[in-house]
């Protein structure tokens, strides 16, 4: 049995178990889910430890360099004169995906622990949770576009219900907004996918193929096909490859989210229950970044290079715009949601630079933000569960009431604002270094973008410190008075057991970024080389 396949389908097996068990055993569902995610974590740690590095394992555009590959024919239809329809179950990972995979498994464990707060309709919740788990892991492993798309769309369904049924007051609005927004992107992605399918032939069999790696090689495109590099086809008067790139980019940019396609995020976060917020911020946003690297840049490197300026500009705008908006919030969760927009802007800026520093920084930032946003949303959940309020102005002096909680809040805040020693610092510094270097190396981004990006680091200090000062320090004063004072107990063992590993990981990655960079470096270099070759 291939370990990636195991990794992908473990959750759904447990999900089936939950579905089959009678509701009288509902108390056990959360333990089953937690167990499933822990099993998955063990698999991914195994993968991480056995993941080989070196130029011969770089992956990117060399199918034979991917690791833990499994390739099975899935849908194979003989279409007579139109050849054979070739859709494969094709999974495999390289440096870009492996660290994200480990991060995903870990965040899932945390989300499972955070699910303790769910009290209604447990069977539905945990079954959907595990379905979602399968889909997101599948996205990071799939190397066949059709398979990728299947997993990608499969994420939407559970998320829609998870937000819409277990969410807050405006959950239906948020769920529909999220669903339609994402669907809007992916419908057009479907068109491009079909176009690519019709343009690309598997060099071995001569059939059309959805194989992403074949799509990266210009030689595999049929002459005169719409996305062929040589044919210069146009769609509505615009170069077809540029249109394809933009459409795919929009689909993933919605996920990242990139300003101005971000407005689903604050609503979805605010309304979603804590575990779903954690998955949204921790994992879903990374699928956007991952998609941009693997699909957008991988398949349309030429368009990516010519559009790099605009990508970088959007990245800078996201950084600053998200940060300013975060500064204006009074809902703690919304503030963190906007800070996510700002921090994910660094990812886009790093990717747009097309330098080794920038892309490594971007991947590291995704991993780091995965852990940190998980921690932040979990922390918000802690306080929300106790008093069902998140308004920053309604709290004061929590540091006196909940000292241990405040320690973790400070760790999460300072790690997020890029204090050296934590992972975000190295990631953001190198995203910016890559962005600045870009002009000298490949001339894609102007120098000022990195400078503007660094202002985001300043603003993040402003909104996080303001929140600390307003909510956690000072004399105790709560809107709910003595009732809240009793309710606001310090974090318990379960919460500590969740937060401590996250804090330690953020710290360890900050001190030893080589844990991530070592695994991704060869792939990043291969990607840079691939981009230069086009």
């Amino acid at each position, binding site marked *: 049995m291939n370990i990636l396949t195991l990794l992908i389908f473990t959750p759904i097996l447990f999900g089936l178990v939950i579905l089959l068990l009678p509701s009288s055993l509902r108390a056990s569902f959360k333990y089953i889910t937690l167990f499933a995610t822990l099993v998955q974590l063990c698999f991914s740690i195994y993968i991480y430890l056995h993941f080989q590095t070196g130029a011969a394992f770089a992956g990117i555009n060399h199918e034979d360099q991917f690791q833990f590959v499994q390739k099975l024919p899935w849908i194979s239809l003989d279409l007579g004169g139109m050849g054979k329809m070739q859709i494969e179950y094709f999974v495999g990972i390289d440096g870009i995906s492996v660290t994200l995979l480990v991060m995903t498994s870990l965040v899932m464990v945390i989300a499972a622990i955070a699910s303790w707060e769910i009290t209604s309709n447990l069977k539905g919740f945990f079954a959907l949770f595990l379905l979602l788990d399968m889909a997101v892991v599948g996205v990071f492993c799939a190397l066949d576009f059709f398979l990728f798309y299947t997993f990608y769309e499969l994420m939407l369904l559970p998320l829609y219900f998870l937000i819409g049924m277990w969410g807050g007051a405006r959950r239906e609005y948020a769920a529909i907004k999220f669903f339609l927004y994402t669907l809007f992107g992916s419908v057009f992605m479907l068109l491009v996918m079909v176009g690519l399918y019709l343009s690309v032939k598997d060099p071995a069999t001569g059939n059309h193929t959805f194989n992403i790696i074949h799509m990266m090689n210009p030689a595999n495109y049929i002459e005169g096909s719409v996305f062929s590099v040589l044919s210069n086809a146009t769609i509505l008067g615009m170069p077809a490859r540029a249109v394809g790139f933009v459409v795919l980019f929009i689909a993933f940019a919605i996920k990242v989210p990139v300003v101005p396609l971000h407005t689903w995020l604050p609503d979805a976060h605010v309304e979603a229950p804590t575990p779903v917020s954690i998955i949204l911020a921790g994992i879903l946003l990374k699928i956007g970044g991952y998609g941009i690297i693997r699909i957008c840049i991988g398949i349309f490197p030429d368009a990516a290079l010519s559009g790099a300026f605009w990508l970088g500009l959007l990245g800078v705008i996201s950084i600053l715009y998200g940060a300013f908006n975060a500064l204006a919030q009074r809902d703690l969760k919304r503030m963190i949601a906007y800070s996510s927009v700002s921090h994910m802007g660094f990812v886009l800026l790093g990717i747009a630079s097309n330098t080794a520093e920038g892309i490594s920084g971007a991947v590291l930032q995704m991993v780091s933000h995965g852990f940190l946003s998980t921690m932040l949303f979990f922390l918000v959940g802690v306080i929300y569960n106790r008093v069902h309020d998140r308004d920053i102005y309604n709290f004061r002096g929590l540091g006196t009431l909940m000292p241990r909680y405040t320690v973790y809040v400070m760790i999460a805040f300072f790690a997020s604002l890029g204090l050296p020693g934590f992972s975000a610092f190295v990631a953001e510094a190198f995203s910016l270094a890559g962005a600045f270097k870009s002009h000298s190396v490949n001339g894609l981004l102007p120098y000022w973008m*990195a400078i503007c990006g660094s202002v985001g680091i300043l603003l993040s200090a402003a909104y996080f410190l303001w929140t600390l000062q307003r909510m956690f320090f000072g*004399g105790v004063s709560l809107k709910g008075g003595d009732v809240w004072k009793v309710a606001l107990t310090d974090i318990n063992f379960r919460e500590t057991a969740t937060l401590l590993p996250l804090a330690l990981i953020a710290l360890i990655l900050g001190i030893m970024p*080589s844990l991530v960079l070592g695994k991704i470096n060869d792939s990043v270099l291969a990607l840079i080389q691939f981009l230069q070759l086009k």
Partner: protein
Amino acid sequence: MNPTLPYTDAQTVTLAIIAVVLPFAAFLVNFLLLGKSKASGWVSTLAILASTVLAANVFFKVWNSPGIHTQQVWFTIGATKVQAGILLNNLSVLMLLLVSVIALPVHIYSTAYMKDDDGYSRYFRYLSLFCFSMLALVVVDNLILLYAFWELVGFSSYLLIGFWFTRESAIIANKKAFIINRIGDIGLLTAIIILYTQFNTFDIQQLFGDKGLIVNSIIANGEWTGALGSIPALWQYVAFGGVFLAVAAKSAQFPLHTWLPDAMEGPTSVSALIHAATMVAAGVFLLGRVYPMFNGTELTVLAVIGCFTAFMAATIALTQNDLKRILAYSTISQLGFMVMAMGVGAYSSSLFHLATHAFFKCLLFLVAGIVIHQVKHIKDDNNLDIDPQNILHMGGLRKKLPLTFIAAIIGALALVGLPLTSGYLSKDGILIQAFDWSDNKGGILKLIPYAALFTSWLTAFYVARLIVKVFFGEFRLQKMNPHIHIHMGDGGWQYKLPLVFLALCCLFPLFSLSPIFYEDAWLYKGFLQANFLARENMYHYIIPVLVNILSVVVIYFAYMIYVKRNTWSFPQTGMLFRISFNEWYIDSFYNRVIVRFVMWLSNALYWFDSKVVDGFVNLLEKIGIAIAGIAAWLDKHIVDGLLHLIADIVHGIGGFARRFQGGKIQYYLFSMLLVLITVFILKLIWT
């Protein structure tokens, strides 16, 4: 770089690393094991004591030797190997020793000073963390690590300023300190990124060494050309701007100085160590590290800003009434002197002044701590509603706190720069070299040394005012409240020992055998550039005389004003007084203009986000719903309507025709007749 160091060098490096890591170990022990135990104070103190011994050991091995540099790969990113290592040269070992030597008495002092505080162990935790960051900052060999510890000292300072976190003013002050330091941090980060882009390395030795990349890079034709390529010369200036911001933020130079006076919200022992002696000097240290990167214009900028800061802060210190605030402004002023010295090329004098200042300013803060502590006791014992830091309540304390008084006098003389003290040696060096420098400068730059000279007289005045108000005359608190119970004294050995130690370090013998000539100081000689030419001119004699004679006059004048009250006194309402008293209105400008603008901008953008961007999405939703409504209407009334129409017609016809087949014979006959008649009538009409 050199993986196989000679054995002795490797040993020295190990000692240096242990010296750096010991406070961190103390931090961990305190944090993880000791909890709220009072033992934490001694754990931290022993750690810093051991660090001091090791640092001294390292210092004597490395001072005036070629230096040691060792490193190994930290991580690889792309094709770049980022190294982590230790760089021990004169500058770093001096700082290593200085920081630990200052930190040691502060630790001892703190064990007594903080003993009644609930956060006793938390305090030592933070203090150890600070010492670790600061010691690491001075020995690391690359810019990424430098930046990391640069921010960590800022972070520990944040923790310590906000140590009493339930106090509103303290948490506002620490937020301000961190954010202003963040401005400096992004400046530094920008500079590092520019240097990295230009030279592809973070290594301080490679960049700023004698034959380093910076020295060999040239600016010509608007391009800055290094070994690996060139970028527009503008970015060399931006890099300088970034470094300057970093220095201005950390060393409290105009325009980023406003956090330092507020930082006095932290415990006084912290102010002594961090916000007077060590951390704030990190900016000057950074200037020392990256000195080769500055060109003539940039050095002039440093000189002007440093001089202005020195002057401005001195004028503010003249009128403040808060004991710690006066000292804080005097710190800013002295740091201005150091930055100015860097600017005028008095590199070694600047570092010399850094070292001497650390001792006398630390001493003065510890004195202030004792005084405030005693006044606070009186306040608490008698339930008075006063500010224990206000010098207007004090006076005549020299009899009650004799040792503290002597220490204060020594510290004050060193700060003013009178002979026999260390401050005299270092400050005169700066002034003399500033005059030397201005000789071949024109225009307004000629004013720089005179402004500095004037500032040193201002210093004499505010220091004299401070000392006189606190220690001379009569105890005004007692005068106002004659019945209060007063019990004060110098305190136990934890207070006395640090004072005595630091006071001795403020005297000349520590630095030079000659009390008169700064050129003889070993510390000064340790930093002389190889191409330095000693110039003998009249400045070397005139300046010291001028400074000291006038200083003595100024001090006497201050004494007359504040003790004897028999001469002219300052008008308290003039514009100059208000500018000084309100700290040049700089802080209120920041609050009213910049902070307000940022908040306005963020609210405006949030409005834009929720109304315009999200409004657009919601508009799309409404349009979608409207289109769906129209479609539903069309579907119901047109598409379906047509269908219904046809159905109705058929139904109508059916209903009509049905009647013809009712089964009643009369109807059949009637209809047959009707048809026949109709046919005939039609036929008749036709024909």
